C-alpha cells in the first residue's frame, strides 16, 4: 500500500474499529452465552413435548408451541394472499411512479413503522372487543398479520422487480395476457424471493410479544380451536421472567428454543436466497 500523509490516523482508526468490534462481539456473545447456558440447563426432550406445570416453572411447552404455530398459520393465511396481491399491484398493475403506486407505498411505509404495542392496542379493541373475537388465536393472528404485511410486501415486491426485463419483452412479444404473465412466468421466476419473504415474515412474527399479550392472550392450555386463547412462546418468556419467581430457568429454555428456531429460519433463508439483496 502507498504510504500517505494520513497513515497515522489510519492506524488509530483501525485500532478503534477493532476495539469496537471486540466490544460488540464480547457483549453479544455474553448475552447469547447466558441464554444458551441457562437454557441448556433446563432443556430436555420432555420440556419440548410436555405440558406446562406449576405456572410454567416445571413441565414443558408443547401447548405453547401448538398455539404459536396456530397464530402463525392465521397470520400467514392472511399475509401471503394479501401480500402477494399487493406486491403484484405495485410492480405490475399500478402505473410506475404514478399517484396510486406512490400512495400505496407510502401507506405501507407508515404501516411498517407502527409500534407493535399500537397493533396490540388496536387488535385488542378492534378484533377482540369490537368484532367479538375475544382473546383468541384468531384475534392474535389477525393483529399480527397487520404487522407482518409490509415486510412481506417489501421483500416480495423487490423479488418481483428482479425478474429480468428481457423476460417481460419476450412475453410482450408473444402477446401473453398480464395474468398469464404473472401466473406462468413472474411468480414462478421469483418463487425463491417469495419463499424468503414468507420465512422472514414468520421470523418477525415469532419474535413478537406486544401484539399478542392482549389479543391471543395468556392461556397455557392446549387450544381446541382458533377461538381459544393461546399463549405463544415469546409471551411465555415474558410471563415467566416477569411474573413467575423461579421461572428464569424455564424462561431461558424457552428463549433457547425460540432462538434456535429463528436461527434455523435464518439459515433456510440464506439457502433459498444466496444473495440477500435486501
Amino acid at each position: 500500500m502507498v504510504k500517505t500523509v494520513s497513515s497515522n490516523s489510519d492506524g488509530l482508526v483501525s485500532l478503534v474499529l477493532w476495539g469496537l468490534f471486540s466490544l460488540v462481539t464480547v457483549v453479544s456473545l455474553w448475552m447469547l452465552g447466558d441464554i444458551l447456558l441457562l437454557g441448556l440447563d433446563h432443556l430436555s426432550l420432555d420440556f419440548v413435548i410436555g405440558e406446562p406445570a406449576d405456572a410454567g416453572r416445571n413441565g414443558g411447552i408443547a401447548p405453547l408451541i401448538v398455539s404459536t404455530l396456530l397464530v402463525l398459520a392465521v397470520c400467514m393465511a392472511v399475509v401471503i394472499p394479501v401480500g402477494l396481491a399487493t406486491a403484484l399491484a405495485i410492480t405490475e398493475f399500478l402505473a410506475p411512479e404514478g399517484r396510486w403506486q406512490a400512495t400505496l407505498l407510502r401507506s405501507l411505509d407508515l404501516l411498517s413503522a407502527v409500534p407493535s404495542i399500537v397493533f396490540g392496542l388496536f387488535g385488542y379493541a378492534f378484533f377482540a372487543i369490537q368484532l367479538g373475537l375475544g382473546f383468541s388465536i384468531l384475534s392474535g393472528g389477525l393483529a399480527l398479520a397487520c404487522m407482518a404485511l409490509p415486510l412481506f410486501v417489501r421483500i416480495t415486491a423487490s423479488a418481483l422487480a428482479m425478474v429480468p426485463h428481457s423476460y417481460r419483452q419476450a412475453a410482450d412479444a408473444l402477446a401473453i395476457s398480464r395474468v398469464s404473465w404473472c401466473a406462468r412466468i413472474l411468480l414462478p421466476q421469483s418463487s425463491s424471493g417469495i419463499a424468503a419473504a414468507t420465512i422472514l415474515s414468520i421470523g418477525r412474527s415469532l419474535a413478537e410479544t406486544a401484539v399478542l399479550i392482549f389479543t391471543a392472550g395468556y392461556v397455557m392450555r392446549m387450544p381446541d380451536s382458533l377461538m381459544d386463547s393461546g399463549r405463544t412462546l415469546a409471551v411465555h418468556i415474558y410471563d415467566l421472567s416477569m411474573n413467575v419467581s423461579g421461572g428464569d430457568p424455564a424462561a431461558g429454555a424457552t428463549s433457547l428454543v425460540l432462538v434456535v428456531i429463528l436461527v434455523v429460519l435464518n439459515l433456510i433463508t440464506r439457502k433459498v436466497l444466496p444473495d440477500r439483496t435486501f
Partner: protein
Amino acid sequence: MAMILQRFRAARAKDLFVQSAVLLFAGVAAIIVVIIGVYLFLESAPLLTGTGIPGFFLDRRWYPLEGEFGMAAMLAGTLSVTALAMLLAAPVGIAAAVFMRYYAPPAFASFYRRLLELLSGIPSVVFGFWGLIVLVPLIAKLDGPGASVLAGGLVLGLMILPLVSLSTDSSLAQVPRSHWLAGTALGLGRWAIVRKVMIPSAASGILAGMVLQTGRALGETMAVLMVTGNVVQLPASVFEPVRALTSNIALEMAYATGDHRTALFVSGLILLVMTAGLVAVAAVIQRRLKRYG
C-alpha cells in the same frame, strides 16, 4: 375464428377478474394503517378537546385514579431511553458497518455480519429477559434500584445496534466502487476515503436508516417494559426508573375503563403520530440528499 374470439374474450374476462381481485387486496393493505389511525382517533376523541391537548404534553402527573392524565413524564421516559439507545447504537453501528466493509479481513467481516444478522432476529423479550437477569442486578450494585433509564438504554441500544449497522452497511454497499478507486488514485489513506468519500456518498441512506431505527426504538415495548421499573416520573439521572409510553399501554390496558382507557388510546395515537413523523422525515432526507448528493 369464432372460437378463438370466444377464448380471447374469456381470457379478457379472467384478466379483468384477477386484476380487480389484486387491486382489491392491495386496497385492503393500503387502508389498514388508515383504519388504525382513524380507530385510535375515534377512541381518543372524548379526551381530545381543544384545551385538553396541551395538558397531555405539559402535565407530568399520570394518576388515572385521581382523574389526571398528564403524559409529559412518560414522554420524557420514552425520549430519554430512546436517546440513550441511539447515542450508543448510532456511532457503534456505523463503526461496525465501516469495519465490516473496509477494514476487517474477509473472515472477520463475514463472522461479524452473521453475528449482527443473528442479533437482529432475536426477539425483544429475550433482550428484555437478559437485561432483567443480568444488567438490572449489575446496575443495582452501582446505584439505585437497577431498573432504570440506563438499563433501558443499554438493552434497547444493543437491540437497535445490529439494525443500524446492517442498514448502514447496505447504504455503503450502494456507493459505486469507482469512488473508492478514485480515492486511492488520489493517494488518500483508507480512513480519508471512508470519511471524505464513502460516508458522504451514502449519507442519505445512512441518515434515513438512522431515523427509521429511532422510530423502532421509540415504539419498542417489551424490552423497555421489563427493565425500566415503570415509575411515572421525570428522571433526574440515568439510574432512576421511568415509564415509557409504550410500557404504559401494556401495563394498564387490561385494567382501564372510562377516561383511563381513552387516555391510553391517546398515548397510542401520540406514538403513531411520532413514528409517522419519523417516516416522513426519513423520506424527505432520502429525497433531499439524493438530489444534491
